[in-house]
């Protein structure tokens, strides 16, 4: 049996390599302490003999069941993989922009409200309000100051936490009147007929401000969501895939499993340790599905070649 990994990130390891490679982990059996990145390096070394395949930097978009009870998973770049079993080990999911809790906001998405700047030219000659206090909000404020007809930066506090150079630049632009800086403030409402034409800004200790604009860019970072996998016809509960932990971590679709942080079941613990266990059980089941007529010879861990490899 062979395993092929599809991951949106440019390297395997998920959160461990992407978010906290230098963070020590204390609950891996046999390691009193190990760096997250080092653990993944070791795992990669350990799985080398099994020659797994990798499709990195692509996100698994859709799944389709074939007549011969296999699945074809298609990525956002159009790459297709066919397999009798699919295990979703998507962790926290994909990171998508954090949306402010404003009623009716979604109606203005792409109609003046953008969470990500894709093409700055879109804002040329327009009045733009930007919200946020991080690097992204500051960088775009500086950049769009020369593109848009008017840029207002709205931030909940008076201090900014972005790179010092950019913070200085924003203050300089504000002093020169090229950027309107509105601090201790928050956009609380959006208005317009079909397109955005105005936002309401709540300012601490002052009256609400109504500001005309063609665009509002709420840049509040990213938050994990299930993403396209949420549309795969799987039973979902609180942003996690419901699996049967009494058997093999199967989902409600035969042949599709979910393991690790992405799944949920009674008593679920989101631990790396539990992910290993779930994967082990799942693979036994996937083997039976791939080779229904073959006997699975169970090898013990002291035998080089690994547990359950096909003779």
């Amino acid at each position, binding site marked *: 049996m062979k395993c092929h990994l599809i991951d949106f990130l440019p390297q395997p390891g998920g959160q461990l390599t992407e*978010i*906290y490679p230098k*963070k020590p982990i204390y609950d891996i059996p046999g390691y009193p302490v190990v760096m997250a990145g080092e653990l993944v390096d070791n795992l990669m070394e350990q799985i080398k003999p099994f020659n797994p395949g990798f499709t990195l930097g692509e996100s698994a978009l859709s799944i389709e069941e074939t007549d011969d009870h296999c699945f074809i998973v298609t990525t956002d770049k159009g790459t297709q993989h066919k397999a009798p079993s699919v295990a979703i080990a998507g962790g*926290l999911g994909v990171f998508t922009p*954090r*949306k*402010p*809790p404003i009623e009716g906001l979604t109606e203005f998405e792409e109609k003046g409200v953008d969470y990500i700047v894709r093409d700055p030219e879109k804002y040329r000659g327009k009045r733009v309000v930007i919200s*946020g*206090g*991080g690097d992204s909000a500051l960088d775009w404020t500086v950049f769009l100051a020369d593109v848009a007809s008017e840029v207002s930066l709205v931030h*909940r*506090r008076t201090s900014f*936490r972005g790179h010092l150079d950019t913070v200085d630049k924003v203050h300089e632009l504000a002093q020169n009147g090229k950027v309107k800086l509105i601090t201790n403030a928050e956009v609380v409402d959006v208005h317009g007929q079909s397109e955005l034409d105005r936002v309401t800004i709540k300012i601490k200790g002052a009256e609400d401000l109504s500001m005309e604009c063609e665009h509002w860019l709420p840049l*509040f*970072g990213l*938050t*994990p*969501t299930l993403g396209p996998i949420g549309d795969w016809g799987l039973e979902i509960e*609180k942003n996690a895939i419901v699996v049967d932990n009494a058997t093999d971590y199967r989902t409600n679709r035969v042949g599709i499993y979910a393991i690790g942080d992405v799944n949920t079941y009674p008593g679920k613990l*989101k631990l790396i340790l539990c992910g290993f266990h779930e994967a082990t059980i799942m693979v036994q089941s996937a083997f039976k599905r791939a080779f229904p007529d073959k006997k699975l010879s169970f090898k013990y861990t002291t035998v080089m070649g690994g547990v359950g490899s096909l003779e």
Partner: protein
Amino acid sequence: MSADIKITVVDREGVPHELIAPTDMNMNLMEVCKSYELPVKGTCGGMAMCASCHCYIESAHELNAPSDDEEDMLDQAFFVEDNSRLGCQIFMKPEYEGLMVRLAEESE
């Protein structure tokens, strides 16, 4: 020897819950809430990266100052007030006996 402390967590419906928290396990408030099955997600696992444990400190306790990571996250969270903190960054100590917090509204 560290003793357990008693803290109060007010949930999003306004119901107060008295919780017993150990102070010798380096447990944070998010973990304590989860162990009592209060509706705190702790999506990021306690790394100040998701704000799903966002809460308001309602008692006068002097807590450890927020780290840069926590401040960054609070900058991006919603419903933030002056007494906002991330539960995952508040580690249970004997001095926090009687601590009272209120869970912030969930934004997604």
